[in-house]
């Protein structure tokens, strides 16, 4: 019983870590590649163009 609960929390902790990492990755890509505030757009301008993000 205890072992079963432990393995279940083990699995859900793994999936939570994977989901959190994917969320961080998506947040970084959105911030660096897509957010259109002027400061961010100007700073990231050339790299956005070079990587093919829709820019203007």
């Amino acid at each position: 019983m205890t072992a079963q609960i432990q393995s279940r929390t083990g699995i859900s902790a793994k999936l939570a870590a994977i989901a959190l990492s994917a969320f961080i990755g998506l947040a970084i890509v959105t911030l660096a590649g897509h957010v259109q505030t002027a400061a961010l757009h100007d700073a990231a301008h050339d790299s956005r163009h070079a990587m093919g993000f829709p820019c203007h």
Partner: protein
Amino acid sequence: MFSRILVSALFAGFLAGLIAALLQLVFVQPVLLHAELYESGALNHFGDDAAANGAGGAAAAIPGVDLERDGLSVLFTALTYTGFAFLLVAAMALAEDRGFRITVRQGLVWGVAGFVAFQLAPALGAPPELPGSAAAEIGPRQIWWFGTVGATAAGLALVAFARSWALRGVAALLLLAPHLIGAPHPDEFFGPAPPELASLFAARSLGTGLAAWSLLGLLAAYFWLREGKRTEGMARVV
């Protein structure tokens, strides 16, 4: 688990991002700066004035390295690849959790698949743009970009891991759908840069992307396995 993903993604993403940034500075940035001369009107490829045409002996020189501007580009390219790395390593972790073995050599396939999802597939509808290109509203294009990346990534995952023909059919649909729907396009074309530069820019952007993503895949798999061995060793000592 999270620290293993974190460390692998930071190392692989930052390293691959730095190399991507260098490749972009050498191969992509000069084309972009050349196009900006047409955008600003310093060069004009219409008409008979050969000096203002800017193909061979350009009337206006292409600017060299600008430390602030290029520094920001390096920073943001490295940051973007770190984001890509988090997504890629998370996917590797999920695959390994489901019983698929990751090897460094397979990392190359993971990297190329990432390139297809994040750069090649969006480029089929919305090719990498020179500054000043005619384009539709930014909002709908960004939505199409996210939809295309998501559908392509899911489609490729099914191609790699699905075991039934029905799911393989779903994979084909996911890969095709963004292109059958089509990216938003502008009502008229008015870009000032020559098409020769635009096609060179798109090809260079994709070429450097493929190189950097291949490296990202190899590095992500390498660090993922190395971190796995390290944490396993620590667990044994404890």
